[in-house]
């Protein structure tokens, strides 16, 4: 059986089986996933922190090293997408929907429920909440994505191999990447991607429902959520038919523009000076505490908090990395390693910080200075707190409507990219995956999200995605060595010879 077919069949059977378990025996799946997830976070949390910090160091090293000049493509190749298109697609795939979801609710949740050594609702808790929000959505997630996407882009565009995660291990495994080990890596990647995207779709649909409820009073019921998923499915299937160059690109650019406008509007009508104070202070705290934050699991006090937030996030970013990595790789052809890393590390991070500063600080201002208890709302229902906050700003309903629109479009671009990536992964890295496979994955992820929302198995599935992150962390550490080996080889045996020939 061909590699693509094997990966497609095996991962399809695996995914359908797990989704089936989530429908038939949701409680048992919940128990199993909770036990696995709990054990992994408890015993291997430190490994996630170390690995993520290592990826930051590795990314910086590559960007500043001699390898930074190597192009992700042929030497004379030009970047396929403009900077704005590239950043927009990076941002839409990597963060988009999550930022809208957590922009207000995460700082407020930390403010209301910080670790035990910080007094809940205090100024210290507010500072802690902002720094942690920056930390969870800052450099580390992008370094994780960079390791994955850079490896895939290098081995596919520079070395001419199919864009598959397994192929990035050629320097370590040789021809074995085309055999069983390679297939196993690709199946694991499909597994993590499907479960991640199904969870994201389910939670995203719930938030859109919350927004529609806030703006139009649409009831928050399963039926409405299903209709939302169905409509979004139709939209992303249409977008997916048009391919990368039109569908995803246009939607991502539009969405980033709308997001920047929304950000600017809230910044202007919100507590502007307060936002700038919070932004400046938090950046300072983040930079000065970076190493401490990166490597501290808080084993003496506050470990439970670290487990349920930081370690959860790190595992989540890693489980999400095959999808984002493959997608980001596919849009980064023609850029140098230095350009790729500096762009992917700085621009989305800066936009994320601005987002959290504007939305988080506005929420905290209402909470601390205007007596609006948004934190309680964030604790009780994270999906609606953004709309609660908008109701206290001028043109609140319009803002809510724009947010719903943003959510929907980010939802469509995420699902569209996921469909594209899953199609690619299960058709031996074909950059134009067959429509049949895109349709299969597209419909499967939406149906799974609907059914699991109903049966209550969505969280269990999210935990299974995180369980897949542990082997993937190991895979990514090996990927770092593999990429380094390849770059060293290229520099030593290919580029050096070419440069001395040029000099002659």
């Amino acid at each position: 059986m061909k590699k693509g077919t094997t990966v497609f069949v095996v991962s399809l059977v695996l995914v359908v089986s797990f989704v089936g378990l989530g429908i038939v025996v949701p409680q048992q799946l919940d128990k199993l996933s909770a036990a696995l997830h709990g054990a992994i976070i408890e015993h291997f949390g430190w490994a996630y922190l170390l690995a993520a910090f290592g990826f930051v160091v590795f990314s910086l090293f590559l960007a500043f090293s001699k390898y930074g000049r190597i192009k992700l493509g042929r030497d004379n190749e030009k970047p396929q997408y403009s900077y704005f298109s590239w950043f927009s697609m990076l941002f839409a795939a990597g963060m988009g929907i999550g930022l809208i979801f957590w922009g207000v609710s995460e700082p407020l949740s930390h403010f209301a429920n910080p670790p035990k050594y910080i007094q809940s609702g205090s100024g210290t808790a507010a500072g802690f909440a902002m720094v942690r929000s920056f930390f969870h959505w800052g450099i580390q997630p992008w370094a994780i994505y960079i390791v994955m996407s850079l490896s895939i882009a290098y081995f596919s565009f520079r070395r001419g191999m199919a864009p598959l995660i397994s192929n990035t291990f050629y320097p370590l495994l040789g021809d074995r990447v085309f055999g069983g080990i390679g297939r196993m890596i690709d199946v694991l990647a499909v597994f993590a991607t499907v479960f991640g995207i199904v969870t994201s779709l389910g939670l995203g649909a719930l938030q859109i429902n919350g927004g529609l409820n806030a703006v139009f009073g649409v009831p928050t019921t399963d039926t409405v959520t299903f209709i939302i998923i169905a409509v979004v499915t139709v939209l992303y299937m249409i977008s997916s038919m048009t391919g990368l160059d039109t569908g995803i690109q246009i939607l991502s650019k539009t969405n980033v523009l709308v997001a920047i406008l929304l950000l600017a509007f809230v910044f202007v009508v919100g507590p502007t000076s307060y936002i700038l104070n919070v932004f400046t202070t938090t950046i300072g705290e983040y930079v000065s505490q970076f190493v401490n934050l990166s490597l501290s699991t808080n084993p003496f006090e506050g470990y439970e908090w670290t487990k349920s937030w930081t370690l959860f996030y790190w595992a989540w970013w890693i489980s999400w990395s095959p999808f984002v990595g493959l997608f980001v790789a596919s849009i980064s052809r023609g850029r140098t390693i230095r350009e790729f890393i500096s762009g992917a590390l700085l621009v989305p991070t800066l936009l994320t910080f601005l987002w959290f500063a504007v939305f988080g600080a506005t929420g905290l201002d209402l909470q601390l200075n205007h007596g609006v208890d948004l934190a309680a709302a964030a604790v009780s229902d994270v999906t609606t707190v953004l709309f609660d906050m908008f109701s206290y700003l001028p043109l609140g309903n319009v803002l809510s409507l724009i947010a719903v629109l943003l959510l929907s479009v980010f939802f469509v671009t995420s699902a569209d990219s996921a469909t594209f990536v899953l199609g690619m992964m299960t058709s031996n890295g074909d950059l134009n995956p067959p429509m049949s496979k895109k349709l299969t994955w597209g419909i499967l992820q939406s149906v799974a999200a609907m059914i699991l929302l109903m049966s209550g198995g969505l969280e269990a599935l999210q935990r299974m995605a995180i369980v897949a992150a542990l082997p993937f962390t190991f895979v990514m550490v090996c990927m770092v060595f593999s990429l380094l080996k390849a770059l060293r080889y290229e520099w030593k045996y290919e580029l050096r010879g070419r440069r001395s020939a040029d000099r002659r």
Partner: protein
Amino acid sequence: MLKRVLIPLNLHESRDRLKEMGGFLKTLGTDEAVLLHVGADTRSAGEHHRRKLALAAEWIGALGVTVETALRPGSVQMEIVHAAEDRGVDYISFAFRRKNWLKRAILGSTVKDVIRQSDIPVFVHKQATRRAEADGIYRVLYPTSLQWKNDVIIEYIRSKEFKPDEVVFLYVGRRAPDPVVEQQRRDEVAAQLEETLRQSGLTESEGRQISVLGSPRRQIVKIARRLPADVVLLGKADTTSGMGPVLGSTAEEVSYNAPCSVLIIPRDLGGKV
């Protein structure tokens, strides 16, 4: 080529051990030896050392080798290197004795230190070397980097004293980043090994090539064990990789871990041969 040797002794070597090594060195064309002990030259200790040196000289002289002795105080590895220069020897030969890891970690290894500092060839003789065995093939393993000229080492291979029955040319490389370039790399390595074999003037039955992937320091030892080889003939470059100062050079590691004797030829020896 390997006519005059400096043999550093710690004076704990047994007669059999010295005779075995001396016999082997004689087959390499060595007929003059300087026996050196680096140790205290006080009246009582010096007398004791001189007596033991004389005894060792007697054992080796019995093999038909002209022997001189020398006793020097000071740093062992520095004195060995200086004595080799002062006495104008062609190479230094050690009767190798393995230290356990603890001793090695605390005391270090004189053999490794001398290999690092010496500009003349160093021979590390190990007891398993079987040149005299009638039923075995005398096999030399030559790991080549294919990067610097093989001339110096080929001169040893072609010399009538060295005369191995078989020379195995070994190349340990790194896998290329993709299958197409990897195939090109394999073809190039095969062609270059073929060329090295041709330059050596050996017939097809006298020489063969092996190309493997991995770390040179590990693969050379592994292949020497698998063949089995009687002598590893190794070129030494003084440039090391980034981890060189921590891990030591390939020559130092192979000389210590190889299951057979190792002759290390410095890269800059060209003019001196």
